[in-house]
């Protein structure tokens, strides 16, 4: 393997490293952000007060993000096994 091959492989490692090594944690972080998002609604009992509850869209999007990360991990493991 000469220096040119090494350089080529290196760029691939950096690219995939950033995509998966930094990208997946970022998606995971988005997921956390989604499931912890809250919305405010008017309190039916006390006029003028607001209650907070977890946002439904946030929860769905958040779980989707987790699912995506999980899928990537499963594919990654399958790839290890097959390689």
């Amino acid at each position: 393997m000469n220096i040119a091959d090494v350089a080529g492989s290196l760029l691939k490692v950096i690219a995939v490293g950033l995509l998966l090594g930094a990208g997946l944690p970022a998606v995971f972080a988005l997921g956390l952000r989604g499931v912890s998002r809250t919305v405010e609604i008017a309190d039916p009992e006390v006029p003028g007060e607001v209650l907070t509850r977890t946002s439904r869209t946030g929860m769905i999007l958040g779980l989707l993000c987790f699912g995506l990360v999980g899928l990537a991990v499963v594919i990654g493991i399958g790839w290890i096994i097959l390689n």
Partner: protein
Amino acid sequence: MAGLQQKAICTLPKSGVLLHDVIVTELWILSLVIITALAFDFTNGFHDTGNAMATSIATGALKPKLAVALSAVLNLLGAFLSVAVAATVAKGIVNLDSITGEALLTVVFAGLVGSILWNVFTWLKGMPSSSSHALFGGLIGAALASMGFSGVAWGGVLPKIIVPALLAPVVAGLVAAVGTRLIYKLTHQVPGKTKETGFRWGQVGSASLVSLAHGTNDAQKTMGVIFLALVAHGAISPDSPMPFWVKASCAAVIALGTYLGGWRIIRTLGKGLVELDSPQGMAAESASAAIILTSSSLGLPLSTTHVATGSILGTGLGRRGATVRWALAGRMAVAWITTIPAAAAVSALCWAVAHFVGGAAGMVLVFGVLAAGCFVMWRMSRQDPINPDNVNDDWEAENDPVEETTAARFSAEQNSSAPLMAVS
């Protein structure tokens, strides 16, 4: 060879008896090499536990004993999953094709001894260091001693050892820094408890991946060495598939080493380099996992230790205001640069002793030196033992003289009113 010749003179000149002695001697030597290879595998195990688990242990995402148990199981699994034919060990770095039989076994044996001693020494110092480099260094030293300059493929040293060693921590650091920055930016609004719990789970997942990747990568080194020894002995041909008992023993031994856990190294990685929080831990291990898996599949295997350490440093850089102990990182860099020369020097010496004493006696002598050296270093480690109970103690009080005085004064005041705190 002197021992063998003596036996030839003393025995009756019946070819059957002579052949028997030769075979028995060679079997002794082969067994010794295999045992030593597995010993290296064992040190490889405990040396690298921290790469996967140090960050999870440091943040409390996993209890210490559970962490090493999980890592051990995944390493075992990974080692069995590694289906790829174990390529000739250190191909393109040392030229082992030109020697055969007992000469080859002696070189391999000496190489292993050098690498084991270096691994145990760096463990004693709590220094993460590459077991791959230790093995390369050991084989280089033994090859140089036995074959001279032509024993090493100098053209392969730059692209296969030096360049990857320089790049691995940098690339890992870059990826981890980017990941850390992204994570903190995206979870700015997330309440503390959710963040902590969520990233702890993330840590467990990513650390598990690193353990699995490590199992698939590193057990192969020892499998390759044992395979080479078996070929040298004539037990199998170079085209044979990997014998199951070789795979099983290497898998079991690396898992056992992982379970025993190099606590000294775990402590350095988890508490010494960077003061970590869960998000950083996850970013570090994710970066490590991605890079280790990608690079090995592209045929550019990077040292798991170099990658993991680089990731941890990078995660310190990615977070504003994080503590990074550069002095320690500097000491680590020195240890890394010294690895190959040091292992080479030791193994060259071991080869010389084994060669000039000759035969099985020479190797048994060197094996005795190996055992004695490891025992001595183990005894030295008992003077300041690190174990699951103190692996997470504050780094400062122990290693920084200024802080130590403050801590001592503080605990003196505490002693009068509170029960004694355990001091490691």
